[in-house]
Structure formats: structure tokens, C-alpha cells
């Protein structure tokens, strides 16, 4: 499989805490990679390093062979790596439709046409089509900040996908979403992603979601990678179970 994104020898310390020590992760062009680990294992730190929000102490991030380690988040976004957040990062006082419209406008403004009107017939149709695809068109004119967590998560992910990224990083897409809604929500996301050429790297606490959607799983513990392989291998690995999943889940998974 072709490698789209590659992290080599990443190290990052916050004082005495090692958030990443010699982390090596690669992501294939169309791969869906799950990252698991206990709280504080360095999962979100890893996403922050990949998107340029944090600079690693050492190590290199390569995207399609290009070194992007020193770039700012917005430049990395422009190259085609977008992300969603554990706490949805949306425009809370604006309508759901306007949220998407602004994301569309920014995505299209790279070629110096930021001066064009934001709302045209075409952009309005495109925004509505996106709302339909993510099954949130019922909330079109509602104030985004007042909606349930699951809807805001979908909106956050829809905004991240608007720029047609080559790589999408999802930080705990199912957290804060009720148990009976989470699979439905993940199905919606994966349906949309399945239709586009995009490599997905998602951080997740819910092992059911990981087992169901990941092609490959990487397990973090204390800033180190303790396992990297197929979901059934990693999730059944005794070390991973001890460090990450917790033994009480053993019976549920078997």
C-alpha cells in the first residue's frame, strides 16, 4: 500500500512527561487507522504534532514524501490534511448552513477568489448537498452551538471534509455521543469517507468502534507505541489489554 503520511522517530516531552517517545506511524492512501490508548497516552499530542499545532522535539512528519514538520496548521491544512476535534470546533452562533458555507468559502479561496460573494446559487447548493450527505439537513437553520453533541460532531467532521482532504484526522469521533447513536454516526461518516480517496486516522476510546471500522490499529501507552497491527491482533494482545483496554472488557470482546 502507498504511504500517504509517515511519522518517523517523533519525540516530545512536556517537562518530565514524555508525550511521545520514538513514535513511528505510517498511514496508507486509503487506509483507516485507529489509534487507541489510555488517557494521557499521547494520542491527541500525536494529532497535534501531525497538524503542526505542536512542534516535536525531534523526528520528522512526511506527507507524500514532503517534510511538513515545521509548517503551521493552516499551511498543513492547505496541503490536504484536515482534522476534527474531540470537542467540536464549530462556529457556535452561526447556523449549521452558514458553518458549512464558510468552510466551503475558505476551501475555495485558495486561488485568490476570496473576494467573490460567499453565498451564490452554486455554493448554497453545495452546502445543502453536504448537509444531506451527513444527514444533518434537518438542522440547517439552527444555531450550531445549541445542537446535541452528535450533530455538532458530524458538523465538525463535515467542515473538516469540505476541503476534500487527502488525509482526515478524527479525534475521538464517538466521544460524548450516546451509545445507541454512535454506530449510526460512525456509519454516516464512513459512508461519506468511503466515497472519497481519503486516508483516515482516528483516535478512539470505544473499542467496539475501533474493531468495527479500523483496518489497522496502533496502541499508545505513555507516549510509546506498544502494538501496531490488524485490529483483531492488537485488541487481543495481552499487553494492550493490560495497558489500554483493561481486563474487564476481555469477556465482552471474546
Amino acid at each position, binding site marked *: 500500500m502507498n504511504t500517504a503520511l509517515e511519522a518517523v522517530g517523533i519525540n516530545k516531552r512536556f517537562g518530565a512527561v514524555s508525550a511521545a517517545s520514538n513514535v513511528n506511524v505510517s498511514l496508507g492512501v486509503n487506509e483507516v487507522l485507529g489509534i487507541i490508548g489510555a488517557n494521557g497516552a499521547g494520542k491527541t499530542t500525536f494529532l497535534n504534532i501531525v497538524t503542526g499545532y505542536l512542534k516535536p522535539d525531534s523526528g520528522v512528519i512526511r506527507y507524500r514524501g514532503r517534510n511538513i514538520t515545521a509548517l503551521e496548521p*493552516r499551511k498543513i491544512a492547505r496541503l490536504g490534511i484536515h482534522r476534527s476535534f474531540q470537542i467540536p470546533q464549530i462556529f457556535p452562533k452561526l447556523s449549521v448552513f452558514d458553518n458549512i458555507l464558510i*468552510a466551503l468559502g475558505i*476551501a475555495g479561496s485558495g486561488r485568490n477568489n476570496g473576494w*467573490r460573494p460567499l453565498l451564490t446559487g452554486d455554493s448554497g447548493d453545495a452546502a445543502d448537498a453536504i448537509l444531506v450527505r451527513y444527514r444533518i439537513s434537518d438542522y440547517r437553520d439552527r444555531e450550531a452551538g445549541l445542537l446535541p453533541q452528535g450533530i455538532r460532531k458530524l458538523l465538525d467532521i463535515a467542515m473538516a471534509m469540505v476541503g476534500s482532504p487527502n488525509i482526515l484526522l478524527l479525534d475521538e469521533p464517538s466521544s460524548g455521543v450516546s451509545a445507541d447513536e454512535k454506530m449510526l454516526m460512525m456509519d454516516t461518516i464512513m459512508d461519506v469517507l468511503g466515497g472519497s480517496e481519503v486516508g483516515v486516522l482516528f483516535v478512539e476510546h470505544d473499542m467496539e468502534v475501533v474493531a468495527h471500522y479500523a483496518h489497522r490499529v496502533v496502541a499508545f501507552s505513555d507516549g510509546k507505541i506498544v502494538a501496531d497491527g490488524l485490529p483483531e491482533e492488537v485488541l487481543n494482545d495481552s499487553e494492550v489489554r493490560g495497558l489500554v483496554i483493561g481486563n474487564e472488557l476481555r469477556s465482552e470482546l471474546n
Partner: protein
Amino acid sequence: MTHQNRTVWCLTIALILLVAVQPVLPGWAVNMIAMSLSNGLVVLGLMVIMRAGLVSFGHGLYFGLGGYGTALGAVFLGITDAFVLVLLGIIASTFVGFVLSFMIARYRGIFFALLNLAFSMLLFGILVNSIVLGSTDGFSVPVPSYFGYVPSSAETRVSFLLYGMICLLVYVSTLAVHRYLNSTMGYIGEAIRENEVRVDYLGASVKQAIMVKYIISAILAGMGGACTVLLIGHVTPEDTVYWTRSGEFVFVAILSGTGNVAAPFIGSAMFELVRTYALQYAPEVWQMLLGATLLLVIMFLPSGLWSLIRSHDRKREQT
């Protein structure tokens, strides 16, 4: 879409009306309209940055730079053409706005507001200590010419030419700002106000967007200052760059609301009216009346006077 075009139509009709009624209006009304329009330009500039969630307590700086740029051009360079003089004022405010934007665009909230105030007080200090510029008394500006024609200076009402020029400048500015606010670049302001992290991760530069907005507001404030100085025929530090002046613009901006490019001019006219009548009928408590007006607007019309027009609009759409 129709909504946007309607704004353009309304502005055009307003321009034609304002110019057409000038000859029949009494002098005080002409003067008041001209003054409201030129002060409204500054408020329009404030509206651009307020939409991005930024309030400046120091736009008297750009108002004053525009005014002094114009006045200095007339007195020390001997330029008489009104359009060139206004252009000089705009160049002065734009240049300083551009230079300061690199620093100011890093700050938000109270730091942004007070940093602007600090720079405006710096200019105030310089002007007050400049004997050659008349210190606190300022200096007079001769009546300008319009393409070679000089209106009689004996008249107490604003000349048709100056009035017409201000109307035209306001018309062009509102159309340009309207176009800008409806573009992606303009809407990024709302997005920045709401969530800078998301804007950044969508791939847009927050700092660059704020710089552009700041420079636009400096241009408009400078234009307003230049027009006001030509209207009054005199320039002093206290009437232009002093903090009370900056505060007045913020006052009118809150009174007006940020819903539409016409709002600052409606708010500005309202402010002039209340001030004129309050001064005339209640000279001891006129500031209290202004304060009460603002209080009422904040309590009952939190989106400013413009929300009166907006809610009327909605009712009509529903029926």
C-alpha cells in the same frame, strides 16, 4: 441574493434622494446630514472590525490622521482641491493603519481595544505639544475648491459641492464594504469571532484577515476625519484624536448595530439628533439623555437600531 441586491438599490435611492433634497432643506438639516454621514464613515469602519469581534477604543487616531492629513495638505502644502485633500487624509490614516496592523492584529479583546487607545493618546500628546500645529487650539482650514471652483465661504450652510462629495464618498464606501462583507474574506470575520481554531484548521490566515479588516477600518475612519475637517473648517486634537471622540464612535456603533452597511449612518444621524435636541432643551443633563438612549437600546435592541428594520423585514416575509 435578492436581499443583497436590495441593499444596493436602497443605497442608490438614498444617494439620489439625499442629493436631490439638499437645495430645499434648511441649513441646519443639511449640516446635520453631512456631519452624520462623515462620522458614520468612522462607525462603518468600526463595524467591519466589530463583526470580527474586535472593538477599538482608539479609532480617533485614524479619524485625527485623516483630519490632520487633510488640514496639513491645505495649509502647509497649499493644495486646494477637496478630492486631493481627502485623499491625503486617507493616505495618512491608511499608512499608519498598515504599519500598526502588524502589531495590533496579534491582540484580542480588551488588549486590542486599549492598544488602539494607547496609540491614539500618543498622537494626541504629539499634537498637543506641536506649537506649529496650534497645539490644543488647532488651526483653521481654508475652503477647498472643487475642480477649480471655489464655493462662497460666507454661507452658513454646507456648500452643495462638499455635501455632494460626502454623499458620493459614503455611497461608494458602503457599496464596497457591502460587497466585501458578503465575500468569503468578509465572512471570515464572523468565523474568527466565533472560533479562530476552526478558521486556522480550515486553512485560512486569521492574522491576515484581521490585518485587512483593520486597514479597511483605518481607511474609512481617515475618510470620515477628512470630511469632518472640511465641514468644520477647523481641526483640533481634542475634536479628533482625543479618547472621548473614540468613545463616541464606539457609542454610535453599538447604537447602530452591525446588521447592515446602512446602520452606522442611521445610528450616526440618530446620535446627532439626540445630541442636538438634548443640548438645546436640556443643556445640563444632555449627556445623561445620551446615556439613557444607549441603555434603552442595549436593553431592548441588543443588535442596535438596525434590528428595528430587520424585525419589520421578517414580519413582512412571514405574511
